[in-house]
């Protein structure tokens, strides 16, 4: 029986999310797992922007920052439920991505890089400087989501770690499902066409500007949701979530794992989230090793980790 790449990816994800806890030696691993899922959601957005449409962003952490601070600020100032604050953050990110994306997506390559970089820096600067609102570099507290209590009342009693693990896992599966659907849709095919050659895509009637903007807005929403979940989970947030290094982290996770496929990018998120956890023993060498891994993978496995591994495995089968 032949199953499609989409079903296979979703199946792998569901099995991983459902069965990994059986291997967890302690409750701490639920927390690491949830962190992987949160990063993987943002990275799936990068797959849509960079993997499908071939556009670069060095400022997507800006949208994560908006999502995170929406969850911190809206419940306090607007009286919104934190879950609605997440939606509000995503909506603000989408509108902002639409407004910013229109002018800057005309730029190509490094020029698009510097424009998105500028956007990310502007967001992180506002979060750092508006102390009376955001608490500045010291960060601020985020209200409790409250969903775990509701579940307990309904008879499902989860620890905090378990709750966030499964919530983020489910949202990740949803996010991946949407991204995979997009990949196979006419829009997805048009996006991949403009990735191949913008001019050729335009010649066959693809509305290049509109499609790039769509990909940019969708990926901004993914980053925003990821930022919101991070804030709600940690119940505390600092402007680092919007910083340049976080933007780079997202792109690196995606490209390292394999930006062409959703599963590859999620694999990259898992590897780079786990790496610092493994390296805490050698905290001194963390940066050295991280830099080395980034260079080596890109030089020797330019397609990314997962596609290269899969090719090895298949090569042996034949």
């Amino acid at each position: 029986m032949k199953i499609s790449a989409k079903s296979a990816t979703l199946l792998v994800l569901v099995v991983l999310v459902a069965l990994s806890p059986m291997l967890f030696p302690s409750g701490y691993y639920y927390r690491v797992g949830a962190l992987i899922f949160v990063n993987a959601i943002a990275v799936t957005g990068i797959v849509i922007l960079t993997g499908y449409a071939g556009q670069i962003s060095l400022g997507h952490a800006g949208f994560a920052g908006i999502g995170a601070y929406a969850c911190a600020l809206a419940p306090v100032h607007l009286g919104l439920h934190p879950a609605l604050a997440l939606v509000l953050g995503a909506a603000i990110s989408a509108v902002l991505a639409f407004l910013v994306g229109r002018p800057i997506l005309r730029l190509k390559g490094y020029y698009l890089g510097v424009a998105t970089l500028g956007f990310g820096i502007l967001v992180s600067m506002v979060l750092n400087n508006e102390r009376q609102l955001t608490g500045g570099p010291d960060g601020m507290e985020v209200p409790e989501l409250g969903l775990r209590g509701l579940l307990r009342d309904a008879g499902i009693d989860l620890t905090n770690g378990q709750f966030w693990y499964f919530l983020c896992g489910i949202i990740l599966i949803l996010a991946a499902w949407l991204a995979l659907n997009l990949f196979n849709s006419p829009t997805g095919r048009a996006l991949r066409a403009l990735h191949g050659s913008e001019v050729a895509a335009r010649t066959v009637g693809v509305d290049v500007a509109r499609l790039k903007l769509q990909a940019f807005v969708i990926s901004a929403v993914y980053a925003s949701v990821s930022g919101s979940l991070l804030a709600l989970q940690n119940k505390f947030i600092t402007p680092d979530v919007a910083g340049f290094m976080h933007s780079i982290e997202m792109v690196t996770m995606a490209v390292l794992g394999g930006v062409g496929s959703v599963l590859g990018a999620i694999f990259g998120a898992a590897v780079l989230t786990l790496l610092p956890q493994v390296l805490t023993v050698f905290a001194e060498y963390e940066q050295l090793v991280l830099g080395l891994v980034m260079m080596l993978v890109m030089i020797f496995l330019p397609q990314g980790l997962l596609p290269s591994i899969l090719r090895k495995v298949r090569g042996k089968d034949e």
Partner: protein
Amino acid sequence: MAELLQFLFSGVTVGAVYALVALGFTIIYNASDVVNFAQGEFVMLGGMLTFVCHAAGLPLPLAALIAIVVTSAIGVAMNKLAIEPARGAPVVSLIIITIGASIFIRGGAQLLFGKQIHSFPAFSGDTPLRIGGATILPQSLWVIGGAVVVFVGLWLFFTRTLTGRAVLATSNNRLAAQLVGINTGFVMTLSFALSAGIGALAGVLATPITLTSYDVGLAFALKGFAAAMLGGMGNPKGALAGGFLLGLIEALTAGYLSSQYKDAAAFVVILLVLFFMPQGLFGAKSTERV
């Protein structure tokens, strides 16, 4: 009036540092189409290695020379080990490789030199010069002079020497350059050495004013990148103008509007410039071949 002059002085000083970093970006970009995000680490290495050698008892000029030569060697090594093997990779991969290199160098510097902030004495003392009611540090003149000398030197090199023209030919069309007998491998080595050396020089000149520590590189890289893009990537004139412009915008914003948002003003200007001139101020208009 004196106030404005004061802001202009500090803007030109900072701008000269940005211009030097942007010139470094330009040289490597021309030779290889790579934007080297590790450029800021060269600035850090220049300042840090000078400090280490000076603290070990060497006279300052010798310490600076050693720092520049060692940094150039690191630049060449980076090209051979990380950039050349990835030739032809997409832009995103190259960005990740050079950022990987920059994180690697930063990590190494943290291990070797620790996390302290360091400095060494200014070259011509710390007595400020008074000009028109404003003051300027002698070291600022060194920085500005350094940027101008490097720019003129590069201009002479690229227009008056055979080797310099070989670099330009390589940046224009690598294959055609190889066909007329240019050793493009050597051009790459030379470009990385030159670029790293200029970055290190920026670090040597600026450290008495800005101080240095293992993690100053990233800020220099982002500002230098922004300055180079503002001027139009690949154009030395653009790099110089972009650097000074960025420094002046920052200093004037800090002086008259808000020191917290000085970086914001710089990036707003860049977004506006790119909006109206997608190739930067001096960038050549490019046509895309299909």
